[in-house]
């Protein structure tokens, strides 16, 4: 039962993370490799705020989202003027800078040792100590986030972003301000990533730079691509699938140091297989009418 609750909390956090990545990659076709950086920043802001300061739940969540969003504006300023290949390079570089800063600014982030002892959230002096009550909180927050993202997907903003992804020059010809639209999408996407990071910090009670690595990025990429980029419900299904599918590996009789790499292998093989099988339909240059 405890294990089930753990999986549910993890799925909820990844739902927020993946759906926000779906906004930039799925709708806008912008391969933002710095998405995990937003996740990391959100987690660290909550960690620092609750261990050294004394932030309440809502303050921490809002601070985390806002900081991630602000940093994405910085990234967007540099990267959004670049085309596909150079955009990927720029976001990759930004992601590595964030990672390097997290490791090197030991005074603030405690370097590779990470920040531990993050308390569970307090709502008006009522601490959510056990996992079931935390699950209710996470579930509620995830529901609200996904509702907002769904409205985004199906509303005019989502339609415009999708159009931008499919044919940028056509949208320019229609007079839309593409830079503003992309910057907004970036901001929203990063804010949700920061929020997910905040929940992660509250749940695991420990953050360190190694939890926000390259492999998290490929996992998110796999989730969005397997769930058909730009599809809201597809992304939900693929999150549940990809977070849960490596779990049976725990119960097999393999040494513990192999579990991580095998999980990574499984997820990346699924990614490449899905990309290969769908190569005609994925990110297609024309749409079937």
């Amino acid at each position, binding site marked *: 039962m405890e294990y089930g609750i753990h999986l549910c909390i993890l799925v909820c956090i990844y739902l927020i993370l993946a759906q926000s990545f779906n906004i930039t990659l799925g709708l806008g*076709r912008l*391969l933002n490799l710095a998405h995990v950086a937003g996740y990391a920043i959100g987690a660290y802001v909550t960690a620092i705020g609750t261990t050294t300061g004394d932030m309440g739940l809502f303050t921490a969540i809002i601070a985390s989202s806002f900081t991630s969003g602000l940093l994405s504006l910085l990234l967007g300023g*540099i*990267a959004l*003027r*670049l*085309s*596909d*290949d*150079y955009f*990927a*390079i*720029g976001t*990759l*570089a*930004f992601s*590595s*800078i964030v990672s*390097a*800063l997290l*490791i*090197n600014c030991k005074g603030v982030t405690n370097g590779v040792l990470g920040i531990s002892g993050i308390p569970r959230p307090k709502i008006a002096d009522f601490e959510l100590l056990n996992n079931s009550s935390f699950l209710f909180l996470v579930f509620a927050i995830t529901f609200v986030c996904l509702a907002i993202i769904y409205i985004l997907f199906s509303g005019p903003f989502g339609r415009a972003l999708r159009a931008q992804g499919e044919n940028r020059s056509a949208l320019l010809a229609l007079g839309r301000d593409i830079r503003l639209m992309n910057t907004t999408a970036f901001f929203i996407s990063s804010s949700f990533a920061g929020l997910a990071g905040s929940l992660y910090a509250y749940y695991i009670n420990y953050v360190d730079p190694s939890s926000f*690595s*390259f*492999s998290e*990025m*490929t996992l998110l*990429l*796999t989730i969005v*691509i397997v769930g058909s980029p730009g599809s809201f419900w597809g992304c939900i299904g693929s999150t549940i699938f990809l977070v849960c599918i490596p779990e049976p590996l725990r119960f097999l009789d393999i040494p513990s*140091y*192999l579990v*991580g*790499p*095998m999980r*990574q*292998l499984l*997820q*990346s*093989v699924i*990614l*490449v297989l899905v*990309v*290969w099988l769908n*190569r*005609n339909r*994925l*990110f*297609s*240059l024309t749409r079937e009418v």
Partner: protein
Amino acid sequence: MELLPQILINALITGSLYALIAVGFSLTYGVLKILNFSHCHLMMAGAYLFYLFFVELEFGIFSSALCTIAASVFLASIVFFLFIRPFEGRSILLPLVSTLGCATILESLVAIFFGVNVKSLSGDWISESIEIGSIFVTPLQLLIISTAIIISVVLAIILQFTPFGRQVRAVAERATAAESVGITPVRVRFTVFSAAVLLTILGGILVGFESNLTPTMGQSFILKAVAASVLGGLGNVWGTLAGSFILGFIENIAVGIDIGGFSLPASYKDSFAFFVILFVLLLRPNGIFSMRRRSV
């Protein structure tokens, strides 16, 4: 400042390693028009294959080298035909995602078969320091520098003066036109890709001798390769070579100098590549050696 000659030599060594690794990446972009994010993971895999032949199976150095070359060509073929070729003519995002997936697959396979612990290649004669004037070098480091110089010269000769080099430049410039004069772009692309992979694996083996091997070294080196290539201009071989040495220079000078008692901690050494990338993308996206002011 007394350390300046030593810093310069270190810069030359670092630059040479980056040159071997980055030139393949840049060439791949120039001819195949894709950013091969699995480039440095292939380097890592090849270096581990050499470790397998040289250290674990204890073949001699020449046999290990031959086996590694054969295995590397095989690996390059698999990657080319499974991860790159199926996505030609479609969205640019597909090979990006596919190579990212390939990189992760390689990293997890190496971690599964070799373990995550650091491995090291070593040879006795290679690591003894020689003192020349005020600087200390090892024969390995001199080997690294000379290999980079020889490879650059050979590459320049091949690309500029041989018929195959002309084919490569033709395919890089306009593949359809090349096809209409009888060149087979797939063959040229495959050969360039394999050559790039072999070069970078050579670099990886030298890195293995100079420091050590870990499954995550692909992640750290890809940014150096990207930085050097972007600095010199993606696809521009001479530019990338220059960019690698400039990057090596920047890294070593920045952590080596001591202005009035203030010096950067050595842990920041690797971050310079990232700042270099962003800086270049902001100001001169086509690379500092490019005359083009085309928007990127």
